[in-house]
């Protein structure tokens, strides 16, 4: 079998947002929609540290859909629009089946990884950007990280991997013990988000 997922060496993440911008452009995301975000583990505002000057710490956590092995979203979708691809483990959204009930959004413990187009999607520039192979964004449809399904289909990695200037994003097959991602989680300490939820995310953060 194949189990695709991500390893992010978040210890060296500098919150530059290159992954988020690459995702936004590649997937022609409408205005104000982001599938990839950077969270600050620190002070009250983005990019601010915890503690009191000069005793400070900060950590950055890039976050998108966790492509869980035991996804909470799939269980609650009444129409099967949210489903787990049996071949790859990728959690997918079928825009045409989605009825916009947003049950998946409330069931997902990872707040904010899904987006919902309340209105007709708006675009800041007057032409599509990114890949020519992505499906059209639709009104009143739930969307999220597709793991760049269109790129996987062409044997390419997701768009967020290569551009990371810190070179801390890795993607691959956890079922292949010789893959880079398998090696990384064998050799390094890692954490996952909300393990107590039992979702078994396919995103591992090196610490």
């Amino acid at each position, binding site marked *: *079998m*194949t189990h695709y997922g991500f390893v992010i060496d978040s210890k*060296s993440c*500098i*919150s530059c*947002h290159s992954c988020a*911008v690459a995702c936004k*452009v590649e997937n022609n995301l409408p205005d104000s*929609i982001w599938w990839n975000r*950077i*969270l*600050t*583990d*620190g*002070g*009250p*505002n*983005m*990019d*601010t*540290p915890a*503690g009191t*000057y*000069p005793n*400070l710490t900060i950590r950055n*956590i890039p976050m998108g859909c966790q492509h869980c092995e035991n996804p909470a979203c799939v269980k609650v979708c009444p129409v099967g629009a949210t489903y787990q691809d049996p*071949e*790859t483990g990728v959690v997918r959204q079928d825009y045409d089946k989605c009825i916009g009930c947003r049950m998946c959004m409330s069931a997902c413990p990872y*707040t*904010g990884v899904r987006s919902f187009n309340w209105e007709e999607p708006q675009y*800041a*520039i007057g*032409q*599509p*950007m*990114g*890949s*020519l192979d*992505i499906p059209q964004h639709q009104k009143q449809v739930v969307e999220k990280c597709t793991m760049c*399904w269109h790129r*996987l*289909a062409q*044997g390419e990695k997701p768009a967020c991997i290569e*551009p990371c*200037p*810190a*070179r801390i994003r890795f993607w691959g097959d956890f*079922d*292949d013990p010789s893959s880079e991602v398998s090696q990384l*989680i*064998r*050799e390094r*300490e*890692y*954490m*996952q988000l*909300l*393990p*107590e939820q039992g979702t078994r995310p396919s995103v591992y953060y090196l*610490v």
Partner: protein
Amino acid sequence: MSGTASPLGGLTRRSFLKTTAVAGAATVAVGAAAPTVALAEGAAPVTAGSAEEQVYRGVCRPNCFGFCHLNVHVHDGKVMKTTRAPYNESCYDRICQRGLSHVQRIYDPQRLQYPMRRAEGTERGAGQWERVTWDEALDEIAGKIKEIQGKYGESAVAFLTASGNQAAGITSAYSRLIALLNASNIGPCLDMGSYYGMAAVAGNYVSPLMGMMMWNGNEPTDAVNAKTIVVWGANITDAQIQNWHLIKEAKQAGVKLVVIDPIFTQIASQADKWIPIRPATDTLLKLALMRLVIERGAHDVAYLQQHTVAPYLVRSDTGKFLRRSDTGVAPTATGQVDATTGQEIMLDPVMVLVDGAIVPETEAAAPAIEGTCDFEGVECRTAFDLLVDNIMEHTVEEVSELTEIPVADIEELADIVIDGPVYHYEGYGPQAYNNGGQTTVAGLTLCALLGNLGKPGASYGAFWGIGLITNIAAAQYTAPKGPSTGFNIASVDLKNVVEQKKFQGKDADIKMLWMYSANPLNTHTDTHAWTDVIIPAMDYVVTADSALTDTAMYSDMVLPVAQWFELEEVANAGQCSSYNYNEKAIEPLYESKADPDIIRELAGKLGLGEFFTQSTSEVLDSLFSGPIATAVGASMDNLRDKKQVRFIPGDAEKKPYIAYENGAFATPTGRFEFYRETPVPRTPTTKTPTAEQVAAERLPHFEPPLEAWPENPLYEKYPLVLMSERPRYRVHSQWFSTPLLREIDPEPIVKINPADAKARGIADQSYIEAYNDRGTAVAKAIYSEAIRPGTLVYPKGWQLSQHKGGGWSNLSSTEFDVWIVNNNFMDVLCEIRPWDGKDR
């Protein structure tokens, strides 16, 4: 945990972060990898065939130092996206959030589409425009040039540029026109402190491949060979993120990272040791480190003897080196000719001490670095002794008090810098004060004392060079009838020249400004100097840009220019020290034109058409041609083929470039000159150094900054040092209106320590007004403990029109140091108050 402003924010649950497992605890089921072809079946619907996509090589060139190679993906004549392109050395493959967002910069709805003239009867800056044709625009400009030159002289027309589009075709086109017009040139004074300091003591290195290191240092791939990387005021993780992975990889290989910065930057958070320092005191810290080096006897005597001016005897009467000619022996001929002067090089060695005897350096294998002697009644001392005198002026305790660094930390840092090799990476923070040139002088001198230069892992500086092939070939191209007879005025001195109408002893009456690849009203200091003095003194102001910048706003005519991927170019600079080839990917948008094409059309209207008959590609062909270009691999054919050609020796991965190898320095003596006989200002200005200033400038020394200093009486009224950062979501003022970046970073902010904010009744995320006697700026206050109490930090590059009131450069001044002639970006005091809703 917190997210960004609105669209990216929202996640607040602490429970989100829990460490689950250590390595190996969670095991992976063994299974065969499914071939990716299997995916094709379930692939997303394909809306268009990607077969028609064309990929061009682009060079991102805002001068963040990167000059990164990008793939520009074009479909049906339109850019779809930009992605990372391969370098010849894959360690340099990179792109960033700005490079990835080009598609929205190119098609930014706010991009200028056609030439615009300030509406008749409106004030400059009022923002009232009328659309004109190119013919009307260029006819008017040509008429103004002729009229103004006829009335006030040729030098009355001036051109100003910075680094918004640093490339050979554009630069040479403007240079040629400037020379033919005998127009004046307004030179940038942006971050020149480090350059001045480096050039002063270590010289300007030009490689055999004709690359000049503007900011010399070992290639960043060499940092892995150090024991410790010491970062001095370099916000690498925001401003030069292309280098972060190299620092990270060095760290992962066991190199320690020390960061010295007033601000807890992302790289400070990654450091093994962060040393918070009071702004503008880096030179003092370096002097204290030198003191500890001397006190511990850790200095490298052999290096000092062989590669520095340490043993040179200095005359107490003149401050000059004691030379053999002082003893009555005339300089002897060497038979060698100086390439720049064409004159024969004469040998007149400096005198040194050997066992108490005064002998020419040429006859001393191991001259004394310490000693005093009497020469015909004049006391002479070694340069080393004079340096030690300066170093000993400040005790470690005094430095501790002024830098606000505990003595123990200074002692520990001394241990670290002594235990080399150390890779010192200096940023532009420390040089952003009036005393900024000395920070580099002192840093390099510290390394020279320790012999921590010219070896793997041992470096001081950064790494940024320019290729000189165009300067050589362009000597004929840019000045076909000789160099311009106009003035060369430092931009920071332009206000003085405009007010005094004199420069270098001549009448100087600048009446027209043409600004390109630059936004001085925003990215230079003291916006009011421009809006209130310089611009009003002009009869005519032209700006060529792709966006309506602050500078464009105050112009009489605005010309829309092609962006980077809309013309063929060679970017001859950058942090890979290479020529970088940029293909034309799309036609210039709307009515915009490439700068060289604008110049060509204008030249026709000025009667200079015969000098501009070639296309830009033909010009590039001739600039990058001839025996030298071919010999160093920088012929246009090779550039078009290879895309990237290095102009310094070495290979980033296999043999990183080492600065000052073998103790060679491009100084007058060929040695490291921590003592300079004749300090020279970086560029001539309306000021002249006094005798006292000359005497002080000969050696590393500390002077307080001009303004940001507690002894300054102004400090009582304005107790906050106004610092800035090179922004993550812009470079200088570029990308200021790129929509997707504005979603992440929508408006001007100022970061403030919560204690300082609360003391002034300022709530988190509320609007404040920063003010001093020069001006105001309104921005949203962001509580951040990363900010040193007593300071503010604002990300640069917001246009005046994006502020609710004022602008950051309203608060800074055009005062400048006579030597470095630099913008004092951070030598600024201010106070803040809650904003009352008024735009002053």
